[in-house]
């Protein structure tokens, strides 16, 4: 890959922001599976497989699936975060593949958060 210049760096940032913006990027929802060592040990792989399977079955092209590291609450792993355009992200805890499927159907597709599995909504305080 070509070496970046400082201007490229700023461009990547802007482009990435645009593509990550749920509405502008063409996505209506984003699912982040937390895959640090703690999450993986607790079964995050199975959660990811279930989410990908549901996504395939749904045929939806407007849902982004991604991974991230430890979300901090290791004793409540596996965890995932669902963010829908315009709403604060919701963190789910102590998941199983079946719970993940329900979350996919009801929240990611249906737009209604699954309260009984949800821990918290919103962003953490950074800085």
């Amino acid at each position, binding site marked *: 890959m070509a070496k970046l210049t400082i201007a490229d760096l700023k461009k990547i940032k802007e482009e990435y922001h645009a593509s990550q913006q749920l509405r502008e990027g063409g996505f209506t929802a984003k699912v982040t599976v937390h895959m640090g060592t703690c999450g993986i040990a607790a079964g995050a792989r199975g959660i990811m497989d279930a989410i990908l399977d549901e996504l395939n079955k749904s045929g939806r092209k407007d849902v982004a699936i991604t991974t991230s590291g430890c979300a901090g609450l290791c004793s409540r792993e596996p965890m995932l975060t669902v963010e829908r355009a315009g709403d604060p992200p919701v963190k789910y805890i102590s998941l199983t593949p079946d719970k993940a499927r329900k979350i996919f159907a009801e929240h990611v597709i249906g737009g209604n958060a699954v309260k009984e599995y949800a*821990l918290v*909504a919103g962003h953490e305080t950074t800085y």
Partner: protein
Amino acid sequence: METTYRSNVMICAGTGCVANGSLKVKDAFDRELAKRNLQSEIKVILTGCNGFCAKGPVIVVYPEDIFYQQVRPDDVAHLVEEHFVKGRPVQKFLYTPPAKKEAIPVMNEIPFFKHQVLRALRNRSLIDAEKIEEYIARDGYMAAVKALTEMTPEQIVNEVKRSGLRGRGGAGFLTGLKWELCLRVKGDIKYILCNGDEGDPGAFMDRSVMEADPHSVLEGMIIAAKAIDAHYGYIYVRAEYPLAVHRLQLAIDQAKDRGLLGKDILGTGFDLDIEIYQGAGAFVCGEETALMASIEGLRGMPRPKPPFPVYKGLFQRPSVLNNVETFANVPPIILHGADWHASLGTEKSKGTKVFALSGALNNIGLVEVPMGIPLKTIIYDIGGGIKGNRKFKAVQMGGPSGGCIPESLIETPVDYENITKTGAIMGSGGMVVMDETTCMPAMAKFFLEFTEDESCGKCVPCRIGNKTLLSILERITNGEGREGDIELLLQLSQQVKDASLCGLGQTSPNPVLTTIKYFRDEYEAHIHDKRCPARVCTPLVQFKVNEEKCKKCGLCFKNCPVGAITWEKGKAASINLEKCTKCKTCIKNCRFWAID
């Protein structure tokens, strides 16, 4: 004297709300309050933009923290009548959040998140660690750009010095000062090194940073390399952290590929190559000189200091070694400035600290808190208190090099100075919380087993001293403690601390010293009364039911796996010692400490 008001009415006077008539709403409030003679009880204040312009004019009423929206001058009489005379908020003007989300609490309603401020972990759960674009999108490498294009090494050093950042590996040496010492050393080859050899039992801060945000470590190293004029670096990671190694390697490859590492970084003319060195898991290799020996291909053993590594480090070249979390803290300091970093924390401990919470807590996990936060807040609010309604006994900070802090000191603010005063150390951030079922001499023995095993054997005080400390602790917990053992432990501990070559031996007696300091009665019970108050040391447990304490609940009977307990409803239980295998299941299930 200033009048005290029972209530404050904050009316937004930002441009949006003024355009919507908020000044007229204020006039209406003033008139209405005067009419009802409430002006001395209720204060009306104009504020800056509240941010929710779409619903203006907006009003917040304190202390109730009630948020009213779209209030018109004509509505004010009704609002004052209802809210301030009758004391009931007016439903009509209450802000209702977009439907159906009320039931899920928000971040600052959950104590685990509420008290945390993420700086080193700023990208936690926000980015995919394996995609460099996601890091760049969150201001990644912007600090490196600033350091490489706009700042001299001296300016970088000064900024980091002024920020007050101290080494997050445990000792708390000023990071900027370390860099300055190395910058002043003349030398054609210098090394920048990252210590990811996290070895304390119960610590996983660095692993998490390397796994979740590897580029933040690389960026910190680029900035440090520029500050000391190094062009080669190593990240020392233990091989037991395969995911951290994998993601760091991916990050290095991606950064190299895009010209963020290697020759002529971003066209600035600055070169830096970084390589991962996998350690084989020896605890002593977290000590800086042993770590360097390990990279050199030698056996991981420390060497005497001075010469300090900033003068003669890796391959006898000037080297700076910083911890993973320290490097992760550097980019935002360069980007937002020293004052920003110093705005959190206490006088001598600035910024935040990441802790790995483990042990008898409800919430096990990784937390980042401002320096100076009371220990109690970490344990009870963030950690959610002790599991199973047990009582808090002590928290071990700093792993085998640290000490325990008892309940009486739970208000201690968590910063380098105050934690050191207790006899524990800040350490790299491991916090192992213990409840009343922990035996303190046995806990000290556990850590001594660890350090005795991990001692490299180079110096006598550590090699033989720790072994002797361990053998004394073994006899105490076996019920063979002798008179004078406590004094012997204290004396020998001091000698090991004073005479050992490196940090391992200089700190390994800390668990012994602090448990004796705060829980001497437990040592005495073991030695004099041949009794283990926490019923942990099996040779000192009688497995006899104390009939006075027994509440006749039968829990011991129901849980005994070998049927050694007899019990009937309404009668105290008893244990058949011939059948008993001393597994202590009964003791774990008894809530009344009725089994001696």
